[in-house]
C-alpha cells in the first residue's frame, strides 16, 4: 500500500474537492462536503482497493490522510 494510491482513493470519495488538493497532511474531515456518508465511502473504497477494513475509531482518531493511512497500514 502506497501513500499516493491511498490519497487518490480517499480523494475520489469527494465530489466537490479537486483531487490535486489532497496531500498526506490534508485534514480530510474539514471539507464542507464531509459527512458520515463520506466516511462510509472511504471505508468501502479502502476495503475495495487495499483489502483493509477501517473501523469507526480509525476514522474518528484520524485528523490527516497520513493518520488514516497509518491506521490502514497497521491492519495489513
Amino acid at each position, binding site marked *: 500500500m502506497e501513500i499516493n494510491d491511498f490519497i487518490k482513493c480517499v480523494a475520489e470519495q469527494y465530489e466537490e474537492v479537486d483531487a490535486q488538493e489532497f496531500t498526506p497532511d490534508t485534514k480530510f474531515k474539514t471539507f464542507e462536503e464531509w459527512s*458520515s*456518508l463520506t*466516511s462510509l465511502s472511504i*471505508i468501502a473504497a479502502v476495503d475495495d482497493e487495499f483489502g483493509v*477494513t*477501517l473501523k*469507526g*475509531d480509525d476514522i474518528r482518531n484520524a485528523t490527516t490522510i497520513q493518520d488514516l493511512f497509518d491506521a490502514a497500514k497497521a491492519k495489513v
Partner: protein
Amino acid sequence: MFCSFKDLKIAGIAAGVPKNVVKSEDLNLSADYDAAAFIETTGIRERRYSNDFTTSDLCCAAAEKLIADLGWEKSEIGILVFVSQNADYILPATACILQDRLGLDKECYAEDIALGCSGWVYGLSTIAGLMSAGTVKKALLLAGDAKRRAEYPLDTLMGFSGTATAIAWEDGAPGFKFHLGTDGSGAQAIIIPDGGARNMTTLHSFDMEEVDGKMINRLTPRMDGMDVFSFAITVPPKSIKKLGEYYGFDYQKADYFVFHQGNVIMLNKIIKKLKVEPERMPLSLPYYGNTSSASIPITIATQLKGKIENKHTKFIGCGFGVGLSWGTVAFETDSIVLSDLVEL
C-alpha cells in the same frame, strides 16, 4: 461453527406488517442530507410503523394465515421459536404466550431467542437441530421486531414486521447447511444501554444526551454506523464463502441471495464481493426498511411471491448485525407456500 441437517424443508413463509405506511420523502432531515439523499443512500422509500401492535401480534397474524394456507393441523406443530428483541413482557417468554394464543398443543416446545438481524438464521438452526434429534415433524419460527419497549423518536431506518416460517420434516429433503458466528467484542456497536440488569431503568435513563448529533435517552438504541458498516461488508461475504468451501458446493450457483436488509450500499458491496449479479439479490428494503430478524423471510415472502412457488429454488440466506452476530444458511425450496402479506 458449521452444522447441517437433512430431511427438513421450509414449507411456507408469511409476513405481517402494520397497515400504516411511513414515507421517506416526508422525512424532515437536515439541509445537507435531505430526504432524497436519504433514499439514495439507504434505499428505503417507505416503511411500516404502528404502535398498535407488538411484534407478537404481527407474528401471530402471520402464523394464523400461514397455517391456514398450508392446511396444517395446529396439533401437529411441536416447536415454536420466537425471535425478537422486543418481547411482549420482561417475563414470561413471549413464545409461551404465543403457544396459547395460537392454540398449539401443550406438548409444544416454546422459547424466545433474543437476537436481531441474524436471528432468523439462528432460529432456523435451533429448530433444525431439535427436529433432527426428536419426534417433531412440524415447527414454527416466528421472527421480527415491531413496537419497542420504550417510546422514542422513530429511527429513520427501521420498519416493523413480524413473520412466520413453517419448517417441516420430509424424507429426502435436502435440508439446511449453516455457518454461524459471533463477535461479542462488538457489543457496543448496536446497543440500548439501559433497561436490562446491567444498567437498570432509573429516572436518569430518561435524561437526554447528545449521541452523534442527535438527542436521545438511554433507552434508545445507539449504533456506531461506521463499525457496523465495516463489519457488514467484510464478515457476511466471508461467511458465505466459508459455507460453500466447508460443504463443497458452489455458492454462486444459488438462485437467490437473501440478505439482512440493512442499507443498499452495504448490500451492493456484499453482492459485488461474492461476484454475483445484483438481480439475484431480492430487496424488500425499499418498501419495508430494515426489519431486523424479519428481513430475510419478508424479502422472500413479498419479493419472490409468484416466482418460486412452482419450481425448485436454491437459496443462500445471510443475517448479520447486533451482537455482533451472523449466520448463513443454504437451503432449497420446492412448492413453497408464500402467503399474501398480512396487514394489520
